[in-house]
Structures are given as structure tokens and as C-alpha cells.
């Protein structure tokens, strides 16, 4: 009876958003007379940073400070339509919609500024600090606040913009049946090291090393936060949690936090993450999206690591001590594989 260490690897290609075209999201951007901007969305921030990242995208596109943008996701009844925050689609789909809306709003803002400064709008630029000035002549300047006041009370213009992002429909090639299921893929590779106790069947995480390629990381700290948390969910799906332990028999399922198993703070392991940035051609500022991909590679990597440690192929999740122990017994004992 002993504890065996094993190492497993998994690589994934992860499509961003829903497949085969469509998958729309809308955004509306408007300025208040104070010169601050509001982004209206129905896309919900679950804690993953939807609000922060759309705020950044809007501010960058408008050319105003990020403090001057407020993102309102209050109500999907009154807000512009969104398919939702899932399928790793938020940054990519909603970000593109916000970018389109902010671009349109910026056009009106520059026209209004041009009218105030009595110049051509094409000769104006934003300084990112809340001012608009004539290119090459920063003293010919007006604040976005004064532009907003002039547009609202003098010119009768609404500084606003509409945006929608819709993926073109994927056509089927009648000859080959080929189609292009997604326009944008993220990639990941993860190595998991585990320790399997062949007496109890328990699997302990030893460490994880991963690399994620997710386009441009618009907010690197939020990306890292999501990857760290998502990997924990991966461990949980691999080794602990299930709402239906005796599927398809619904009996004896967990009913609450006391019965629903999850890894606690003592079950985690060191996790070294490398973020690789290859900007996506159709992403907002090159972004794809971490999303579900944070958790996905952990499951197969852990299953492979268990095989490497004790020689059993686990094909049902979660990989509980009972399943590991039965599998080890069925093959007549642990059979550690070559160390990788």
C-alpha cells in the first residue's frame, strides 16, 4: 500500500461563443450632459469582470478616461438584447458590440466638438484625458464635458451610439459537408501532477502548470483571477462535485452545501500560469475570452495523471476515491506507468 505520483497533460482548442453563426449581443452608449458616458447592456457580470472589461473597451474607443464611463447591466427587460454571459462569449461578443456603439457615439461627439471649435471633425483628436483638440494644435481644445453640454443644450444632438455584434452564418460546403463552426479559437495546455493513495483511492492535487492563449488580455489581472478560480472549478469537476452521483437515478443526490462536495482551501495546489497573447482578428482590441476554458483542460489532465500514477483509466466524473479504488482492485493492484 503506497502513494503514487503521476503526471498528466491535456491540450484544448476552445471556440469562443456559440457555434455556426448568429449569437448576437447589443450595446448602447450615450453621454450625459456631464460629459460622462453610460454603457447599457443586458450582459450580466457574474464576478468575472464583464463590467470592467466593457468599461475599458468603451473608454478606449471613445478616447475618454475610464473613470468617465459607467456600465449599467441592471435590467435585461429594459436593456439592449444579449444572449447572455456564457460560452466564454462576453469579452468577444459584447466587447465587439460595445466597441461599435462607442465608435458611433465618438462620431457624434467629434461632430459636436467640431461645431464648437469651428473646424472640420476629421482634424480633431481625443487626448484620452477628457479633452478634444485640433491635431497639432493642442491649445485649440474643448473638454468632453463642454461638448456634452453644447450637444445637449445648444446643438440638440444626442451623443450616443448603437452597437451589435453578429457572427456571419456559417455556410455548409455541399460537396464536403464542411463548415466553419467558430470564427475565433482560444487554446490551452495544462500539466497536472497528482498523488494517488492506492489504499483509500484518494487523489490529491500536487501542482498544476498551464499555458493559456486567449488573444489579447485586456485586463491581465482579471484574466489571471479567472484562470486561477476556473482551474479550481476544474479540480472540483474532476474529483469532487456532481449533482447526480448515481446518474441517471436521481436518488441520493446532494441537497445542500453540506452534502455537495467541493474542494476546500486545503485541497488546492500551486498553479503556475503562463498567458500567451495572440490577438484575434475579429476580437475587440484582439481579445478572445478565458471563460469556460479555465476549467476544461484540468479534467482530462487529472484523469491522465491518475493513469500515469496507478495505471487505471477513469472515464466517469467525478473521479471519486470509490471509483479509483474499484478500478485499482479490478486490475489487481496499482500499476504505476513510466514517469513523464
Amino acid at each position, binding site marked *: 500500500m503506497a502513494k503514487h505520483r503521476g503526471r498528466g497533460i491535456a491540450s484544448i482548442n476552445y471556440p469562443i461563443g456559440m457555434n455556426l453563426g448568429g449569437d448576437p449581443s447589443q450595446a448602447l452608449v450615450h453621454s450625459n450632459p456631464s460629459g460622462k458616458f453610460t454603457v447599457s447592456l443586458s450582459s450580466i457580470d457574474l464576478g*468575472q469582470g464583464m463590467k470592467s472589461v466593457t468599461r475599458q473597451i468603451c473608454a478606449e474607443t471613445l478616447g475618454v478616461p475610464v473613470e468617465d464611463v459607467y456600465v449599467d447591466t441592471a435590467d435585461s427587460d429594459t436593456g439592449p438584447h444579449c444572449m447572455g454571459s456564457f460560452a466564454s462569449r462576453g469579452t468577444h461578443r459584447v466587447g465587439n458590440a460595445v466597441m461599435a456603439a462607442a465608435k458611433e457615439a465618438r462620431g457624434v461627439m467629434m461632430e459636436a466638438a467640431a461645431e464648437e471649435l469651428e473646424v472640420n471633425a476629421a482634424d480633431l483628436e481625443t487626448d484620452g484625458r477628457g479633452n478634444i483638440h485640433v491635431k497639432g494644435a493642442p491649445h485649440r481644445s474643448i473638454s468632453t464635458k463642454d461638448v456634452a453640454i453644447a450637444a445637449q443644450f445648444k446643438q440638440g444632438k444626442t451623443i450616443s451610439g448603437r452597437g451589435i455584434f453578429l457572427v456571419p452564418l456559417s455556410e455548409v460546403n455541399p460537396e464536403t459537408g464542411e463548415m466553419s463552426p467558430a470564427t475565433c479559437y482560444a487554446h490551452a495546455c495544462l500539466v497536472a501532477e497528482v498523488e494517488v493513495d492506492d489504499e483509500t483511492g484518494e487523489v490529491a492535487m500536487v501542482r498544476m502548470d498551464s499555458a493559456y492563449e486567449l488573444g489579447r488580455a485586456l485586463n491581465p489581472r482579471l484574466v489571471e483571477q479567472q484562470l486561477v478560480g476556473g482551474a479550481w472549478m476544474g479540480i472540483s469537476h474532476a474529483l469532487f462535485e456532481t449533482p447526480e452521483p448515481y446518474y441517471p437515478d436521481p436518488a441520493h443526490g446532494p441537497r445542500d452545501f453540506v452534502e455537495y462536495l467541493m474542494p476546500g482551501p486545503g485541497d488546492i495546489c500551486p498553479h503556475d500560469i503562463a498567458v500567451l497573447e495572440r490577438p484575434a482578428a475579429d476580437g475587440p482590441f484582439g481579445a478572445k475570452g478565458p471563460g469556460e476554458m479555465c476549467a476544461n483542460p484540468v479534467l482530462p489532465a487529472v484523469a491522465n495523471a491518475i493513469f500515469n500514477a496507478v495505471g487505471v483509466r477513469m472515464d466517469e466524473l467525478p473521479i471519486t476515491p470509490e471509483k479509483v479504488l474499484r478500478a485499482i482492485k479490478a486490475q489487481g493492484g496499482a500499476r504505476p506507468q513510466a514517469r513523464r
Partner: protein
Amino acid sequence: MTKTALQFRHNGRDVALFVDGGVNLLVALRELIGDMTPKFGCGQGGCGACSVLIDGELHLSCLTLAETVNGRAVETLDGLKNGPNLHPLQRAFMEQFAAQCGYCTPGMLMAAKALLDRNPSPSRAEVIEAISGNICRCTGYEPIINAVLAAASGGRARA
């Protein structure tokens, strides 16, 4: 049902209220006092979202009868900051990105405060043990552990 008169200190302020028999402290805090910082997660002591300090000790307010805090001092997350100044733990949680959806955060902060009040420079294992009664579904715990260690004795934590 007869109501019981109850007096206790709530974040340094005296409060007096009448509670029905059997009402738990979480309901008294949220519905009778209006302090919404302790969260209702499971109502049976399984998640730690309702954690508060009673006379400096960590308790699950959902499993504490309101009547038992008569004459005692109850601290919640609402009392953690000092005017406009955030508590070092709150600042560390922000700096370490230790919250995502935020639902577990009040309980995590109170569990961390209870730890640091009695052990200002805890080891990593001691931090893990101190928050092991609190469930977090978003962060993977790592940023929370790091935040508590960073806040401990101004960052002079043992390995």
C-alpha cells in the same frame, strides 16, 4: 408568540430590539437592524457566508439564536472599515483580487479578522484552517489566502 427584549452592541453601537423566540442572529441583523453585510448562504452552517464576531469570536449567525447575544458585542463586516478608511484586510482583498461575485467576501473577511486578532502573523496553513469553514465558488481560494497573508502584520507573514 411572545417577543423578547434584546440589547447588544452592534459594531460599537448599542441596539435594542424585540425578537420572536427562535429567531436567529442573521435574521435579527438583516431584517430588524438592516445590516445586510452578513449573507444568507445555506442557513445550516455549511458555507460561512453569515459569519460574524461575537465578543471577538467567530460565529455562524444563522445558527446563533438572537437571544443569546443579549449584553454581548456583535461585529459584522459593516463595522470593519473606519469611516472612509478601509480595514487592511479589505485593502488586501482588493489588491489581491480576492473577490469575484463577492457573496462569500463578508464571511471570509470576518473569519480572517478573527484569525488576525488572535494571531497577527499566521502561517499559510493557519490561514487555510481559519477560512476552511467558508465556501468560495469563484476564486479558487488562492487569492483569498494570499490576501490574508498580505494583510497579516503588514505582510510579515511566516511561510
